């Protein structure tokens, strides 16, 4: 089995130390960092994501795999930056103002990183302007918002309106999710996508950036 397949396999198993060692080995052997990322790390996470989608594995297993991915990414990322290799895109994420619940949002961030996106996590209780300012500052192509309380969902509409009023509608897409949020609500407020869970958030983000 080649080293990239081994990285993917150990990543699936959540063996973070082994993934770190194998990634180091691959770098030392002269494997291009972009290849390590695509074939080894993201390749492994894609398999994990698919297994999660069909309920062969569950979220804790995904998170163990994500930790293993980070172990490899820590070594590969500086090399990618040095070589000016572009990422898939930048996503600004946060839980909306009035909402301190951040587990779902954290999971989305983990899965997006696993799919090769740059993630700017603003945390919880984020005011509408902060989302837009962060998107502009980081050249983000997507704003992802999460809400767990029905009473905080209107903040999502505030962000959509703010993106529109600042003339960013063509460059910044908006994705929403969270337990009380639905596809209908997303449509109603003018969001570009609704994600039911962390795995589907990755699919939506990929579709949004083309």
């Amino acid at each position, binding site marked *: 089995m080649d080293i990239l397949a081994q990285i993917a396999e150990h990543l699936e198993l*959540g063996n973070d130390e082994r993934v770190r060692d194998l990634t180091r080995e691959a770098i030392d052997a002269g494997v291009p960092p972009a290849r390590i990322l695509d074939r080894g790390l993201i390749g492994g996470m894609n398999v994990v994501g698919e297994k999660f989608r069909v*309920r062969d*594995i*569950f*979220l*804790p*297993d995904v*998170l*163990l795999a*994500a*930790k293993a991915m*980070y172990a490899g990414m820590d070594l590969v990322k500086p090399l990618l930056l040095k070589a000016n290799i572009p990422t898939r895109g930048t996503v600004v994420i946060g839980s909306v*103002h*009035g*909402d*301190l*619940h951040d*587990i779902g949002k*954290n*999971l989305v961030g*983990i899965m997006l990183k696993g799919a090769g996106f740059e993630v700017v996590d603003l945390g919880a*209780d984020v005011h509408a302007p902060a989302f837009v300012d962060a998107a502009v500052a980081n050249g983000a192509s997507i704003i992802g918002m999460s809400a767990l*309380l*029905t*009473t*905080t*969902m209107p903040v999502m509409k505030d962000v959509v309106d703010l993106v529109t009023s600042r003339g960013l509608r063509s460059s910044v897409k908006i994705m929403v999710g969270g*337990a*009380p*949020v*639905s596809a*209908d*609500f997303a449509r109603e407020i003018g969001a570009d996508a609704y994600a039911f869970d962390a795995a589907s958030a990755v699919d939506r983000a990929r579709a949004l950036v083309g």
Partner: protein
Amino acid sequence: MRERVVFSIGEAMPPRGDVLDRMGMGSPAPVSTRTDALIEAAVAEFERLAEPTGLVDDVTAEAFALVYAGEGRNSHETPLERIYPRADSLALFVATLGARVSARITELFAADDMARGYVLDAVASVSSDLLADRLAARYRERVSDGGTAVLGYSPGYCGWHISAQRKLFERLGPGEIGISLNESCLMQPLKSVSGVLVAGAAPIHRFRPEFSFCANCTTRQCLPRMRSVR
């Protein structure tokens, strides 16, 4: 009657099945040994860190009307505004697991130990809900004359605006058990629950989920709750 309740860890420990449900693993699919180990570790951390405490205080319908109204930001119509006037008795409540569990969850995520953080969060979330149920059960024992059903209703859900927390906290003063509100009306520690316990005949708790906000609700938690008091 104001009552402070210190729960044992055993009373606060959620059933394993409920934790699996919370993590979307309620199906009969086998749990991996790795997940088993994570749950065991989370339970051990929970036992070490949790300080489950609650506070209950009776409130009249008139006094509760002010708490319910909060800052005037509730939805036009809500289930609770129809339910509480028909109650036999009402009590405000808060319960918390204390600061240490929430801090540990944050710490684990910050250290990229997401799996452990997530499982501990699931254990703590289910436990918080369990504390509210335990308080409801204790209250029911105190006020019941046999056919009483008690359910808890919380600000932030089903049209009762989260800003009502301010009035609730003014009235109940849960600082004594270490709970505070931030400017967004959210409780610190995060693993806390608050609201009103409504005691009355089971039918008063039933309603059709046809309010304006129901269309955007995907959880429909009201249905099993209503079934639970049949």
